[in-house]
């Protein structure tokens, strides 16, 4: 079933639900090509930084953990700004 915007969750909620460490998330995001520092990762999780691409890398990292639990992509992505 496709999820709509309303039932998607944000980075913090996804991170919190998974119960993983920031270091886990940082490494998962790095594996997906991300290049954030641990501190920047934390800032995105807590909504202090909101670049769409970096946000989406982290969302993908969390969603891949949810995939391992047979859950659909729960974490919301952001739309890229026009280049």
């Amino acid at each position, binding site marked *: 079933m496709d999820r709509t915007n309303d039932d998607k969750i944000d980075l913090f909620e996804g991170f919190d639900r998974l119960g993983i460490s920031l270091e886990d998330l940082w490494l998962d995001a790095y594996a997906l090509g991300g290049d954030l520092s641990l501190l920047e990762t934390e800032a995105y999780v807590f909504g202090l930084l909101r670049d769409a691409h970096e946000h989406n890398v982290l969302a993908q990292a969390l969603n891949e953990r949810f*995939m391992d639990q047979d859950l659909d992509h729960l974490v*919301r992505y952001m739309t890229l700004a026009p280049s």
Partner: protein
Amino acid sequence: MLAPDLYVAQRFAEITQVLAKYENTQETLQGIVDLGVSIIPGAEAGGITDLRGDRFRSLAIVGELPKLVDAIQYDLRSGPCVDAALEDTHFMSNDLAHDERWPRFGQRATTETAVRSMLSYRLYSEVADEHSSALNFYSTKLSAFDEESRVLALVFATHAGLALTAARHKAKMLNLRQALASNRQIGAAIGVLMTRLLITEQEAFDLMRIVSQDRNLKLTAVAESVLQTGEISIPGSSRLTETSASAAKSAARRPLAGQH
């Protein structure tokens, strides 16, 4: 009969040999509990409590008792395992029903389960990654643990902590190596898409994650396909190649369900 010091030294050597053989963190955790239950006098069951943030869970267990007893401890956030995971010490209780340190836990545990005695140690690991852990032993008998249990368990918990540190170092190294390989593969796939579709790095990533979402595939699987075929097909479009760069750009910006 060996002198007590020699006896402990001999067990010390056995512990090191056994714990060094495990290949990964979970095997090491289970091995620690298996071996602990077999060598600590009085232990009938065992388990490792893990605390990350404010969440407790049991990582490895031997016997049925830990599941039942730990669930009560995690519910009340009180008990020897909880305190050992939080504090720099160990706890021995040979009569849980009347132990004044954990009155609510003791009453519930002895009413709802057969547990009567417990022995819990903080399990040190250098590579704790925001975890703290406790190694616990359980018995259905009153006064199950004595001084010998206490001393051996202390030696054992120290060695177990070292074994766990080594296992976590190994796992961390492996994870970093895998992450590096995956990072390179995804980077290469992004490079292919950028060159063929004349799109930015961010757009290339977004195309791949859209396909990942649509097909329920990991990004590495999408990247592998891109590297094999030089192409990517996204929901609602025909297969994209260098002739459909504008379609790729718009796809990367098309709000899908779940975007904002």
